[in-house]
């Protein structure tokens, strides 16, 4: 765009603006260096590292049991699934046979985590586009899941319920009852999300046709999770590489082909329905049995490389362990979904307004500790 006015001394300039690290729309300490022409975004440069805690390096120091609790603090909204990823990697390396009870409980709690994460995202999404009330409605429903977690695992956010070889302890006797109560409650509240926000004409105008991402771009940027599926890229790890009890349940992979912010929004809303259906299939059929397999007090992985990926609420989380046969990993690498999804931001936000940037960033559902680790 030619920004100078013809035959005039007047001219406009691009300017820089720092969005973050302390900014209400970045959901954490993410700094975006924006190049703006008036209201139009010319360039977005994410600047990372404000909450880097070198978790990967700390993992090289810790034993395999201790690694698990560090992953709580990466993507804190799907902490259980992060724990599960590390435990699955270690169990696969040790070739442990995990009891069915553990697998089913892990899957149920994992899907509850996904719903909790998506309800929080929905609330924050509404807040980013200016509808503040959604925040509290989202939190109301998330609170019930947090109570379930607190009763069974002892913590609401950083649960650390998994250990290599199973679960730390059995589920609380109230777990099944409370989960059923939640599903019944949430089935009446989820349609309300649609009437309040999804159908709203202002919201649709803000979301539709904004933040366009084609399937090819989604694949080449390494997008995963709802971001990739909103562009029609079938990337659900639960479907393609089922882990835990996910091979026993039937569910649909939600795919939208529009590739705009609204498609990503819809994918998450529909995923909540799918997660509820998974929980309903499993909650009545939790098999009896042990919740732990005996492991050595000091776990030593065989020499070699091990990789396991799971589907967190944000996308594909990969855990790569390079072991030299000692009690600590030689190298441990997390392939976090947030990092590659963030790399899209410049691609989808350029050319839009400041408001579009905030709205498309909200649909990427970034959790900054997941990006920085």
């Amino acid at each position, binding site marked *: 765009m030619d920004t100078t006015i013809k035959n005039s001394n007047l001219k406009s300039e691009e300017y820089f603006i720092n969005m973050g690290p302390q900014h209400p729309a970045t959901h954490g300490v993410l700094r975006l260096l924006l190049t703006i022409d008036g209201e139009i975004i010319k360039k977005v440069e994410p600047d990372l590292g404000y909450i880097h805690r070198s978790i990967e390096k700390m993992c090289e120091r810790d034993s395999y049991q201790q690694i698990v609790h560090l992953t709580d603090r990466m993507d804190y909204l799907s902490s259980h699934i992060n724990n599960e990823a590390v435990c699955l990697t270690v169990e696969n390396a040790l070739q442990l046979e995990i009891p069915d009870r553990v697998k089913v409980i892990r899957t149920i709690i994992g899907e509850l985590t996904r719903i909790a994460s998506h309800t929080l995202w929905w609330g924050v999404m509404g807040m980013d586009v*200016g509808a503040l009330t959604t925040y509290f409605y989202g939190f109301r429903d998330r609170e019930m899941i947090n109570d379930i977690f607190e009763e069974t695992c002892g913590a609401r956010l950083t649960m650390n319920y998994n250990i290599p070889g199973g679960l730390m302890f059995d589920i609380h006797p109230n777990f099944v009852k409370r989960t059923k109560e939640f599903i019944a409650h949430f089935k009446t509240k989820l349609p309300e999300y649609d009437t309040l926000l999804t159908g709203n004409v202002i919201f649709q105008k803000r979301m539709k046709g904004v933040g366009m991402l084609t399937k090819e771009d989604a694949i080449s940027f390494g997008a995963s999770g709802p971001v990739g599926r909103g562009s029609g890229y079938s990337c659900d790890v639960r479907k393609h590489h089922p882990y835990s009890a996910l091979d026993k349940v039937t569910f649909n992979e939600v795919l939208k082909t529009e590739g705009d912010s609204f498609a990503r929004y819809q994918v998450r809303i529909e995923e909540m329905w799918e997660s509820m259906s998974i929980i309903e299939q499993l909650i009545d059929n939790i098999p009896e049995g042990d919740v732990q397999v005996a492991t050595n007090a000091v776990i030593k992985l065989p020499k070699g490389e091990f990789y396991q990926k799971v589907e967190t609420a944000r996308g594909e989380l990969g855990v790569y362990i390079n072991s030299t046969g000692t009690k600590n990993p030689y190298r441990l690498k997390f392939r976090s979904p947030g990092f590659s999804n963030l790399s899209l931001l410049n691609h989808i936000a350029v050319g839009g307004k400041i408001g579009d940037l905030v709205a498309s960033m909200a649909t990427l559902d970034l959790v900054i500790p997941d990006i920085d680790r």
Partner: protein
Amino acid sequence: MNISLNITKTITELLSGFMSEGAANIGAMVTIALIYLAIFAVAGLYLVLLERKIAAWFQLRLGPNRVGPWGLLQTMADALKLVSKELTGTVKADKFLFNLAPYFVIVSSLMALSVFPFTQEFQAFDINIGIFFLIAISSIGVIGILLGGWASNNKFALIGAMRSGVQTISYELSVGLSLLTMVLLTGTLQLSEIVEVQKNGWLIIQGHIPAVIAFMIYMIAGTAETNRAPFDMVEAESELGAGFHTEYSGMKFAYFFLAEFINMFIIAAIATTVFFGGWLSPFGITESIPWLGVFWFIGKTFMLVFLMMWFRWTFPRLRIDQLLTLEWKYLLPLNLLNIILMAVIVWLNLTIQF
């Protein structure tokens, strides 16, 4: 009960008992100004409290309930805190304009209050171009916002201020035109006269279809005039942090904040006067007790204020270009059509009168 609410006359008479006529007039003006200032400083504070309470009830919360009974003293405490805070500013700010800006905003909103007929007698300044005066005054406030945003030497503030300029200039058209639609019906711009006309039925009933359309357009444009959600592009906390008042602190910030709420009251009060019969009671049930008009006026105004709060706590925010699309492609053409429709209705005498 016979309470004299014609305050100007009463105070002038009281003062002229012991001083000359000119001094008495000036004294009366100062007294009335002080009364209005005091009433609306307190009213502004309680509007803030009301907003917070209503927001809480929409959002399944309790709202402020710790300071005083039911949290009634919360905003007083907040104001005290703001008074005691240091007034900061950026080093490279244009100091004079930076300090001037809040006064533009608060003075313009307080000035507008003077022309409202709270009852038949209780009106400080019954000017014969009342509606024009209101429209003119309400657009001065934006100068304060522009000055504040520009002078603070902050890019977020500047973006907010420029958005505000664009928005207010556009939506003033709709506010003005929708009020003019009703002026076609009343044939006068004087606010007390407009209320008199409505003794035959409130204007929203007299003017039926075009009046309802005008009311809807007025409420949308009025919400935009006050820079409130869903048109809060000026502050847009998820985009700009705090918008034009990013660099303001203490009482200077409080002026902006208070002005927003008094502006909301003004917009609702104009709508009450023009569409809902001002201080007139429904079906004239309390016609024999004139001073009750205050309660009817305030009651109707607060209903409309509540409506604006309901908007705010339900809708997402528009984007700046959508905001302008709404005005120039929807509200303005509809408004012009509506004026013609109203003219036809008045011409053919199709109004509903009791």
